[in-house]
């Protein structure tokens, strides 16, 4: 039996090993297969985001209203500009990466070092921007109330037609209520920090300000959030059970908590990819400096991390579209 097999493998050299039908090295092929499987994971996340969005298609938060901040420009509404800038940073880091790969093909060590360095800088800038975006999202800006069913009630001023922040109209009522810590009572009972205004303070402030109305999560035919009349608002505010400031995995002042969950999960998973990409780039960067690939005779390792880096950019293009644009 053994002899038969060895005879056959001599006859058909395609199965004898050594040939490269795809004309790519083992490492590069494995990087491609990793990219395909990772691409499928990301598409799974984005499609499940789409699932939740279609499920709540008439009440989903409007991304333009959520991400309106730009660093150092306080109070100016700048929807999308910041995330567009982040997209450009990542595309440019992709370009410097491909330039490094190209310099590697020509065995120009110093050029590879220079372009790898730029790629690392741009990559780190992107991760930093992502952190800033998270921070702004977690802090929130206007604050809102939530009903027992988990619906969010936001406030609009009829005078200006703009959103009203709870900190601007809430009426402070002196109270003894403090954040309960496990050190000051039964050890197994504690709570996360109290919102800066209590439900009663917001309710009272709302009743005092005649020009305030409530905006609910539901969208009208034009895709705008429905604004209730003053009388409807006064009825609706009785359903509120708590104050929501900012966003976390449990509640979200911008609307459906699932929006925040998916935001943290998808951009977090992508940001983690960028972060590990920066780390891998740094390792390869030092390998280039000490001349590992010069001695090896080729810069294929730069090409492999390049593939990973472009993939991360590719994923961001889709995250950008489905989270911020669509």
């Amino acid at each position: 039996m053994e002899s038969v097999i060895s005879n056959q493998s001599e006859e058909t050299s395609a199965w004898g090993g050594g040939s490269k039908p795809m004309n790519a090295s083992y490492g590069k092929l494995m990087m491609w297969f990793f990219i395909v499987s990772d691409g499928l994971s990301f598409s799974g996340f984005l499609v499940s985001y789409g699932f939740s969005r279609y499920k709540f298609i008439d009440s989903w938060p409007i991304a333009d209203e959520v991400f309106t901040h730009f660093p150092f420009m306080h109070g100016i509404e700048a929807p999308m500009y910041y995330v567009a800038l982040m997209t450009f940073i990542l595309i440019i880091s992709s370009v410097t990466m491909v330039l490094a790969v190209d310099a590697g093909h020509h065995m120009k060590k110093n050029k590879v070092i220079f372009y790898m360095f730029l790629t690392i800088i741009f990559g780190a800038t992107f991760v930093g921007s992502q952190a800033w975006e998270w921070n702004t999202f977690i802090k929130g800006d206007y604050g809102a109330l939530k009903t027992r069913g988990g619906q969010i009630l936001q406030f609009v001023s009829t005078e200006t037609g703009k959103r009203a922040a709870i900190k601007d109209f809430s009426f402070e009522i002196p109270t003894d209520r403090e954040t309960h810590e496990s050190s000051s009572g039964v050890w197994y009972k504690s709570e996360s920090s109290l919102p800066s205004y209590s439900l009663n303070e917001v309710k009272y402030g709302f009743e005092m300000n005649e020009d305030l109305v409530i905006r609910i999560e539901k969208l009208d035919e034009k895709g705008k959030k429905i604004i209730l009349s003053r009388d409807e608002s006064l009825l609706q505010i009785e359903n509120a059970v708590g104050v929501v400031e900012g966003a976390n995995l449990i509640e979200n002042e911008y609307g459906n908590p699932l929006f925040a969950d998916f935001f943290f999960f998808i951009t977090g998973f992508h940001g983690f990819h960028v972060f590990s990409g920066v780390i891998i780039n740094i390792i390869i960067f030092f390998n280039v400096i000490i001349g590992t690939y010069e001695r090896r005779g080729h810069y294929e390792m730069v090409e492999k991390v390049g593939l990973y880096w472009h993939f991360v950019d590719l994923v961001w293009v889709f995250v950008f579209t489905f989270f911020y644009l669509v």
Partner: protein
Amino acid sequence: MGKETHNLAIFRGFLKFKSNVQKIWGVLILLSILTTVEVALGIIKPDILNVPFLRVKLLNWIFIILTIVKAYYIAWDFMHVRDEKSSLQGSVVFPLVFLIPYLAFILLLEADYIFDVMSEGFVSWNF
């Protein structure tokens, strides 16, 4: 891989670059233009494009198509898929272009059904 193995033509040979580095900058310009168009449309949101087509707004179709065009150029020119053998191109691209639209189709259809049940049936989440 030397520089002579690079395919330097994009747009089906309409635009041909002299060197690989030139092609990279050319693709960057193309990607920047596409992103700028996307952002501009996202900020302006023209009312003409606010009409549904196959249950998705025309504007969103434009975003999705531009994204796929961008993805094509990132993969083909930055990841050098253009220079690979067709067997590698196929084994990388085919699973993705088959499985992702399939998954999207079944899940979005299901979600649309759940939405209908909640809006027209007796199930409600607003207490």
